[in-house]
């Protein structure tokens, strides 16, 4: 880990939302932010992702979708009576961001995924899904190393806020769990910030 990313990580681990304060000169501290902590950045990214996710579920996609498995079929499949699922939209948006070059990533995860690729893919994801599954547990923050690269990893619970969430997951033919109730934690959004490059 490089020195400044290490300092950001330490600040993040302390839960500080303001990482650095610039000196205003003559020993007077300035109140202007000059950097953002990793936790703050992850929380901001999550806020945007979760808001889109929520609005999509509430306003656009209230019904039970058809089965979709690929980028192409999700858009055009006659089975997709209500358009692509929120999970698919999240994936596609994330891929679009990566295509333009991104120094963060995010993913939808569940211990009971309808799409296998949404299952946990690292030990921290596995641990995080358990941590955020508890009622009112909130987000969980950790660091991990994957392929020699350090990451600040934030895991936020996804809660069944709409009846359509429960309906879909309880009735989808590939759903491995069918006893969801409203306000259950159904999975998580994982936000990752690499600590190098």
């Amino acid at each position, binding site marked *: 880990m490089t020195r*400044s990313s290490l300092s950001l990580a330490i600040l993040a681990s302390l839960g500080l939302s303001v990482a650095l304060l610039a000196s205003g000169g003559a020993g007077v501290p300035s109140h202007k932010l000059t950097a953002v902590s990793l936790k703050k950045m992850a929380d901001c990214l999550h806020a945007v992702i979760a808001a889109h996710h929520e609005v999509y579920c509430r306003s656009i996609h209230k019904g039970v979708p058809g089965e979709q498995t690929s980028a192409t079929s999700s858009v055009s499949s006659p089975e997709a009576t209500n358009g692509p699922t929120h999970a698919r939209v999240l994936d596609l948006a994330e*891929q679009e961001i990566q295509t333009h070059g991104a120094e963060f990533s995010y993913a939808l995860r569940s211990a009971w995924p309808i799409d296998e690729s949404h299952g946990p893919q690292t030990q921290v994801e596995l641990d995080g899904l358990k941590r955020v599954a508890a009622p009112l547990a909130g987000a969980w923050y950790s660091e991990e190393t994957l*392929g020699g690269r350090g990451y600040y990893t934030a895991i936020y619970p996804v809660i069944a806020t709409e009846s359509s969430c429960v309906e879909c997951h309880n009735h989808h033919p590939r759903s491995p769990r069918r006893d969801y109730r409203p306000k259950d934690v159904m999975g998580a959004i994982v936000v990752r910030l690499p600590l190098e490059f």
Partner: protein
Amino acid sequence: MRPFSHGWISLLIVPLVYAISAGSCHPAPRSDSGRFEDITRRAGLAFVHQFCHNRIANILLSNGAGGAVLDFDNDGFVDIFLVNWGPLAGVTSASDRSERAPDRLYRNRGDGTFEDVTTLAGLEGAGFSSSATAGDFDGDGYEDLFVVTVGRSALYRNRGDGTFEDVTDRSGVGHVGTGIAAAFLDIDRDGFLDLFLANYLTFDPATVSEQNPGAYPGPLAYPGEPNTLYRNRGDGTFADVSEQSGIKRAGHRAMSVTPFDHDWDGDTDIYVSNDDTPNALWFNDGTGHFHDVAVDLGVAFNSIGEAPGSMNASVGDVNGDGLVDLFITRLGYGSLYVQEAKGRFKDRMWASGLGRLTRDFTGWGGSLVDFDNDGDLDLVIANGDVFTRVGSRSLLLANKGDGSFLDASTEGGEFFARKIPGRGSCVLDHDNDGRLDLLVTTLGGPAVLLGNQGATQHWLTLDLVGSRSNRDGFGALVTMRANGREWRAEALCPTGFLIQGDRRLHFGLGPYSRIDSLSVRWPSGRTRVLENVAADRILKVSEPAH
């Protein structure tokens, strides 16, 4: 997908098939120091990569250099060509006044040792070279070399008398840019090898890291450089068809190129590993026109949704289902893309155990290799730090037979406990004993040749010779059956990260000493079927006349 419906089938064994080496089917181990023994010094390889700086001061200094394995003198033993860096303004240290150390061509004497024939061959080279690819572009029966350089890359024609001539200008392949890798392939199956040049990024030494003053900027700080595709006209010259073929795309930062036929439809597709941008799988429509299907097929990103720095793709069937899979080394989470029935891939990095096994290492040169000849593809990965020249352990990972892996580094021998700044890795059989050896390059250090002394099971190696198809047989599809088991593999230009390996097609056969049937489908559409083939030898298989 285009069905393979044309072609002739012949049932001939001789004279178009030659047994090169009978060897012993159960060669005795050479020592008890581990499966792989560092034989670099004994073999006479004295190559040291010239670093030209005291630290990794910028992104170009992090990548290293490689070369190519080729049999340039057609004596049946593979030779080794290694390229070097040299002082480069704005990249290497301005205070470094050292002269450029030459590229090196080591001729295999056939007795386990090599001799340096660089000067005689005229292959000293120049500039800041990254890698090389070997192929017989003019079909004269001798392997030629294309050397990829940050600056001007060069094509060397093998005269067949132990010397090479620089034909870059005459052939029209003297691209100037940030070249990092290349591969020969026949995009249109006309029998002439075309050339794909992977370009990295447009480096500007004035660029600084916005987030991290003092550290060198990452790849996204620089504009990507489009790749170049040259079509071989068949007269010794090439045409730049990057635009018309569809592969020219801005914004990507290639690290390596891997030609392979992902759907076995008979034409060669192209996988490009990119740095911090999604990887591309260029689907060949059969006429040499391409479009990128990586996102749709699930091989653009890793399983956590990232497009981190990909180094290289290694190709092979890891789970024995007859479909070709890909292993990607990265700075960041790697990928094991396992192909499923509909041509899509699922990333099994976590499920295969590779996520845990590679967690602490930045992988550069990853090679699928059946190191124990048990019939499944294992993995060797040369690891190294991206930011410092501190060494890392390399990994030897054994396939359990189902596409999941366990760490076999301990049994691999002393080399796998050694910390090196690993970069390129490739597979070769330097002594034709059927036990696959390894060649690893390092950043600012020696190249290492590892002799395999542990594989005791049966094997078969195919040395394909095309006639109507390209002479190297690149793109030929091989299906082999023994005792109810089937293997499928493609003869491809065996590019690794920065270094190309032994082009001969090797199969570990486990307990089977005889092949029931062996089918080779050539890029021309012609097919040769051999039956009842004895194992434990190198078979030269020529393309049938009809």
